């Protein structure tokens, strides 16, 4: 029972981290209709910028300033890159963000090298918050949960309760009408892109110390973020939240409970073959859940796309 609680907290941390990325990505998608492949790269930039700033001015300034720089960079990419490619159509846009992801990874390697950066948890938060049956929960995890929840509430408030949020929502669905009402829609798009990438930057700045700040970090998380918003339903903020938590918990639980395929197959009445070593399905029999934890989201996504192409909470076909 205690282990369940610990796993719930771990999964929540992973899920909320994923949500911070997927929230921005799904906003950008519903706005421009293009999946930003470079989104996780902005997350990586957030981590690296926060690290570089923390060297001179400490962790907290880094946490504050790095997302702003990332957001400005993101807005620049929208203004001078995507807007230009937009005229050629959707596929070139997708390819452009894909190329950008490659380029940012190379750029990071160019500036900071290939090794992991010594980006550490600040001293203030480096203690055990509480323990559940001998499993200590670090304070930093609690901090991460609070930051992500605060951002989610803030985002929801801005989008649904303020005038700016109303205009953004209107611009997502009826850009021409909003433009006719006298609002600068390209500027709104640029702003949303900037805020979306800044959110990714925040995620990077707080995840960098725990998940490691290295050039492959965008690649590790990048495709999972897509999977998340596809499962949740493209363009749906709540869907992104549900899917992020789902993926966070599924992978955490699959990793901590060692469920063996053999037991499942025996359980449904198929007996283990006698000479397992020569059997062509031997790898299938010896699969354990920690082994496949990382590919479970992909299986889920393919299933969702086959049976419910809108995603869990999505309203429109991608």
């Amino acid at each position, binding site marked *: 029972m205690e282990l369940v609680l610990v796993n719930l907290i771990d999964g929540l941390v992973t899920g909320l981290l994923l949500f911070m990325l997927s929230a921005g990505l799904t906003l950008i998608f519903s706005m421009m209709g293009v*999946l930003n492949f470079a989104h996780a790269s902005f997350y990586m930039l957030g981590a690296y910028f926060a690290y570089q700033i923390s060297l001179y001015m400490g962790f907290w300034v880094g946490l504050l300033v790095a997302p702003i720089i990332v957001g400005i960079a993101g807005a620049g990419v929208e203004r001078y*890159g995507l807007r*230009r*490619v937009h005229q*050629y159509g*959707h*596929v*070139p846009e*997708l*390819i*452009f963000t*894909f*190329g*950008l992801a*490659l*380029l940012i990874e*190379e*750029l990071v*390697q*160019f*500036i900071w*090298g290939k090794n992991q950066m010594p980006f550490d948890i600040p001293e203030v938060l480096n203690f055990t918050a509480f323990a559940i049956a001998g499993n200590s929960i670090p304070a930093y995890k609690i901090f991460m949960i609070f930051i992500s929840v605060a951002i989610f509430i803030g985002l929801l408030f801005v989008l649904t309760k303020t005038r700016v949020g109303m205009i953004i929502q209107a611009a997502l669905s009826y850009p021409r009408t909003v433009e006719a009402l006298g609002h600068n829609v390209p500027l709104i798009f640029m702003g949303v892109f900037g805020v979306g990438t800044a959110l990714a930057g925040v995620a990077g700045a707080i995840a960098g110390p725990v998940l490691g700040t290295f050039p492959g970090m965008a690649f590790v998380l990048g*495709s999972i973020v*897509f*999977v998340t918003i*596809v499962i949740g339903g*493209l363009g749906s903020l709540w869907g992104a939240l549900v899917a992020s938590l789902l993926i966070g918990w599924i992978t955490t639980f699959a990793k901590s409970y060692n469920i063996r395929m053999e037991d499942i197959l025996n359980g449904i009445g198929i007996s283990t073959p006698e000479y397992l070593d020569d059997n*062509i399905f*031997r*790898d*299938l029999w010896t*699969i354990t859940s920690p*082994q*496949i934890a*990382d*590919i479970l989201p*992909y*299986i889920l*996504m*393919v299933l969702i*796309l*086959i049976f419910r*192409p809108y995603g869990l909470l999505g309203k429109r*076909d*991608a």
Partner: protein
Amino acid sequence: MNEQDQITTDPTKPAQRMRAGSMTISATPWIVAALVLIVLPMIFTNNSAITIMNQMAITIVFALAYNMLLGQGGMLSFGHAVYSGIGGFACMHIMNATEFFAVLPLPLLPIFGGLFGMGLAMIVGSFSTRSAGTVFAMISLGVGELIAASSIIIVAFFGGEEGISGDRTYSLPFFGIEFLKQIEVYYLISAWLMISTLLMYLFSRTPIGRMANAVRDNPERAEFLGYSARWVRFYSFIFSGFFAGIAGALFAINYEILTEENLNTTSSGVILLVTFLGGVGFFFGPILGAIVFTLVQTVLSLQTDLWAFYAGVLFVSTVMFFPGGLAGLIMMHVPAFKFGKARHLVLPYIRTLLPGLITILGLSALVEMIFHFRHAATGEDEMTLFWTTFDSHAVFPWIIAIVVTAAAFWITRRNVPGLVEAWHKANNFSGGRT
């Protein structure tokens, strides 16, 4: 009506009409290509050159197969390496099945690779081709990641992290050839390159290939004409899988080892890069892309550690400024040639591109110097660039590099208007022949 319109659309002159995705319908380019393939190893005789040419040929087949989807079918796949990888792995298993392999001539092996690639494409295509666009791209990414990840788990088929290897020489000798030498493998790969390129070209001429173009451009209208967009996509997809499988088989024959690297998302990304760089709008685009990329990869990676960075910059700038790729860039000049005015472009081109080239070289020199300055081991201040050795921590080389780059950039900027003017003149018929 000016002459340019006549060249492209006049229905009374079918031979002059520009056909989407084709260079020409005559046999000449094929004969020239075959001759070039035969003669090339006689000019570049050393083994490393032949290795590069083999790699090039394999990439060409794969890129053309990929362009059947992206360029001709309008489907963006992020996991196409899976099909070539499966074809390669299947061939490797056939190579290791000693009894069967002993009665199979090696040149027939790629057919099996193709069939396995096609088989997998049939399974995946049965649900992924329902729609093009984002859903297709996402499913291809998901399936790609899935199979790449399973390749580490399922050791029996994929061999885990070290992959599986075989020996091509155990096959039935083909007219006395046992494929021990690299040159024999070269001719085998070249023969398959010619065959599959011709087949893929002919596919683009068949009604189904034409319908693939129609579905790419306007699926709704194609449906109204009575064609199922889904089945048209499905056929493009499985044939693309077939030729990707052949590329995988050629890889297996050439390198005799396959690992997880052959089907992961990085390889899928590389083939997208190659195809787009070459140009998706023309049949010969991917061929150009494969040749240029392989050269960049092999030659540039010997010169600098930063080759992937340059490749990334090249890719992003291609998407931003030349979405037609290299092939599009070349085909832009066709009207000027037809008007007989191409020679007016030569001088403005030299005036602009020469300083432009110096600008790019200067910029890359600066990039290399920054890289050396930041990452070289302490005490190693000497670096060699463009056949000169200097101290990267001194001020003087930096001043030279910056001044040369800035000056070249200034000259380029100054000459661009002249080039634009010459371009308009050369592409405007009303100016009259001079």
